[in-house]
């Protein structure tokens, strides 16, 4: 199925349409082989920040596998996002080391200060710098305090 037949990513937003085309072109640049399925999903997500249905369908068409199999594969990976993430969201690690360092208290504090913008996340493998949080650009932050997150959120709001 050519890209033009895919559902529009978000017809109300021209910038989204442009990014979608970039994502689809990135997928097209890969060899049309089954072993390129995960690379295709990763390049599409890299371009868009998540995997809308249009990207999934395009990857399926390019790799020549059924859309259902692409979904079956995509849902097997915790880092592939099938829903659009909310901008400004912080993910706070509640793995064992982060929890010992106050990760859960950090999550509560951020949830209270930024309602709807704080989510729990599993180990981020930066345990020696606990507690750890991840911003919406996927940057890792170590030895995080609530005030550091709130300062960053305020700075973001002012720019």
């Amino acid at each position, binding site marked *: 199925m050519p890209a033009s037949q895919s559902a529009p990513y978000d017809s109300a937003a021209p910038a989204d349409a442009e990014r979608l085309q970039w994502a689809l072109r990135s997928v097209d640049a890969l060899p049309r082989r089954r072993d390129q399925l995960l690379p295709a999903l990763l390049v599409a997500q890299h371009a868009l920040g998540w995997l809308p249905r249009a990207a999934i369908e395009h990857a399926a068409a390019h790799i020549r596998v059924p859309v259902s199999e692409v979904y079956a594969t995509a849902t097997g*990976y915790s*880092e592939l996002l099938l829903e659009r993430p909310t901008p400004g969201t912080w993910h706070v690690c509640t793995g064992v080391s982060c929890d010992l360092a106050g990760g859960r208290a950090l999550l509560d504090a951020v949830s209270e200060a930024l309602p709807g913008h704080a989510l729990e996340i599993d180990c981020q493998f930066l345990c020696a710098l606990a507690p750890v949080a991840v911003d919406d650009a996927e940057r890792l932050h170590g030895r995080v305090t609530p005030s550091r997150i709130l300062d960053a959120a305020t700075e973001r709001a002012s720019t």
Partner: protein
Amino acid sequence: MIGPTPTQALRRLHDALGAPPGEVEVHVLRHRGTCGDAVDAAAITLDVGAPVADAACDGACWAAPAATVVRPGHRHRFARLDRGVPDELAACVRGECDEPQAGSGEAGLTVRLGRNDGSLTDVLTRGGYGAYAVAAMLQPARILEVLRGVGLTGRGGAHFPVATKWGLLAAHEHPEKVLVVNAEEGEPGVFKDRHLLEGDPHRLVEGMLIACRATGIHEAYVYINGQARNGRDAFERALADAAAAGILDGTAFGGDPVTIEVRSGAGGYVCGEESVILNSIEGERPVPRFKPPFATDSGLWGRPTLINNAETLCAVTTIFDSPPPPTKLLPLSGDVPRPGLYEVPVDGNMTWASVLAMAGVAPARVQALLLGGPSGRFVLPEEFDTPLEMRTLGAGGTVVLGPRADIAAITRSLAAYNARESCGECTPCREGTQRLVQLLADPATNRDRIDALIEVMTEASLCALGGMAGRHVTSALAAFPDAFEVTDPTEASR
């Protein structure tokens, strides 16, 4: 002898790259990497009268943001520069300092971590590719003999003898057998391969080339955890540098050409299981395969496949040392003043008490260690003075639990993690991990059912995620029977 000796080959490569002879000049290494960047190391200004170069984390993650002053024969790490750059750092640059050398030892896998700028030139100056230069001259059977003599075992957790696995691949005459490196490292609490990839990626390239030489493999894939972006970038740079220098195609040292391709994972604890990696690379659902056949006979695309952990292949680069350091990397975190990556000798003398001392905590201040995360067990103080054994260390992830750590909450949270991460391919794990979470609401009442369930999961799960998902529960209930209170009676009575 045909061809250059290892020394000649290394010297020729050195000369071609323009490696600086003699001693290094005074300079400062600012430790960046994932650890440094997570605490804004890039923002630290080091205007101290010496050139500053960026380097990776040296394993002392606790020290971040940190910098190391390097003078000929002298290194001194300055920690926690977010609290201010001390005057002593500039004094050290001027030579007015006689602190002992900081950082890891002079042998082992971490010896180059955070000590160089990552360039091939610098790596060669510090012994890089010395082992491959030797291996490239040896017959494959001779490499296996050396490996067998050393007794190296897999460092990913299963502790399988490396020489045995390599021998199985060497015996196959399949023209397209393949090497797959497991650098997925998705076990919570483990961060060793990331440090190796970021701080010394050439060591992994070198270990892979030795493996390929010994087994007659010409094609390799490196499966790197999707979140380890810095590690992947560093490894790809190293690969490009090694290719440009003729190390991969046999020009520099001899040996057959090897192609190496990097693949990214995309999350999921189960993706560290070797057969899941094969499915993932092939573009299939990330679920385990039935064994047998084993990957050594029928792995990636049905070809004979050698799968080794990244740390194992890095350890291979030490097999020609005399003696090779019998070390294990322990990523250590939790209630401890100096969390980080420790390379400890597992030589019959090392104990948990000595590891804890290195990390700055008195054993009396420790309730238990969680060794191996969600597939692990609790190590109690009475074991702290027993010498460490390689086979008991798993992948090495260690969380120190202080007196206030809530063992029951940790046990329940690990059980919930396993339930979330189960891929659903087999019933014992898919259903068992969920049921275990419910039964843990009231372990005292449900004890018999918990034990029976864990037995079924251990025996009948398709892979180790299910097979070991009850291990920490059994360990916690045995060691801390009084720690558990009923959390939700409706759950407990179901």
